């Protein structure tokens, strides 16, 4: 059952990830990206990461992608032509980088089966207590980052920005 779910989620996720960059219309890309994120959330759940799986659905598929869809609808975008000008070197570079990355990952981390999960692994209690004790400094810093992002977004999207 776990193997079946893994293959469904990974094949659909990677396939829809490919469709994100293949589809000519940004709206279609966004819908495929939502499907990819839902599949990734399923993979997190298979890895005992219940909390991050819920976060993925709530924040990514729920909030970020809705924001993106709004912007796509505001900008009357049309389907685009072929790839970017002078992108043949980019194909080569990205292919070479991609092959190197994939082979390095495959060679370095021949990881086998994971160990038994400890108690409370990936639950809200476990992640939350870690977040508020050991990782309290990054947690506070991320709130500053969010504040800066809010202010920046408001200033940038003011219509008569000086």
């Amino acid at each position, binding site marked *: 059952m776990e193997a079946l779910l893994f293959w469904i989620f990974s094949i659909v996720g990677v396939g829809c*990830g490919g469709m994100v*960059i293949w589809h000519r219309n940004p709206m279609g890309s966004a819908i495929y990206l939502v499907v990819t994120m839902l599949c990734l959330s399923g993979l997190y759940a298979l890895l005992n990461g219940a909390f991050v799986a819920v976060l993925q659905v709530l*924040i990514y598929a729920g909030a970020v992608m809705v924001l993106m869809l709004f912007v796509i609808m505001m900008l009357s975008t049309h389907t*685009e032509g072929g790839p970017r000008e002078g992108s043949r070197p980019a194909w080569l570079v990205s292919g070479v980088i991609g092959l190197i990355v994939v082979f390095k990952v495959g060679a370095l*981390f021949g990881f086998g089966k994971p160990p038994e999960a400890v108690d409370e692994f990936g639950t809200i209690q476990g*992640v939350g207590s*870690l*977040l508020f004790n050991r990782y309290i400094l990054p947690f506070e810093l991320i709130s500053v980052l969010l504040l800066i992002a809010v202010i920046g977004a408001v200033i940038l999207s003011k219509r008569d920005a000086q």
Partner: protein
Amino acid sequence: MIPISYYLWVSALLFVTGAIGVLLRRNALVILMSLELMLNAVNLSFVAYARMFNDMGGHVFVFLNITVAAAEAAVGLAIILAIYRTKETVDVDHLSLMQH
């Protein structure tokens, strides 16, 4: 049980897909979506390593990473909107000048 390396392969494939999208697509919105795809791939490898080493620090960093991605999406989309107002396009081939 599924070996952890399979999850890492999925993560690597998604990352490469996102990188190719950033390099090839013309539409700034799609480039932003490809960036999100890359961030998601990194998140998947974080969760896989957390499971491998039984250490929930990976989950904490996925939490932080999602926050960073949300902030990035908000600011990036605001920038794209501002560019669209002055240039009337989001095609990065037409956005090579820093003046308007």
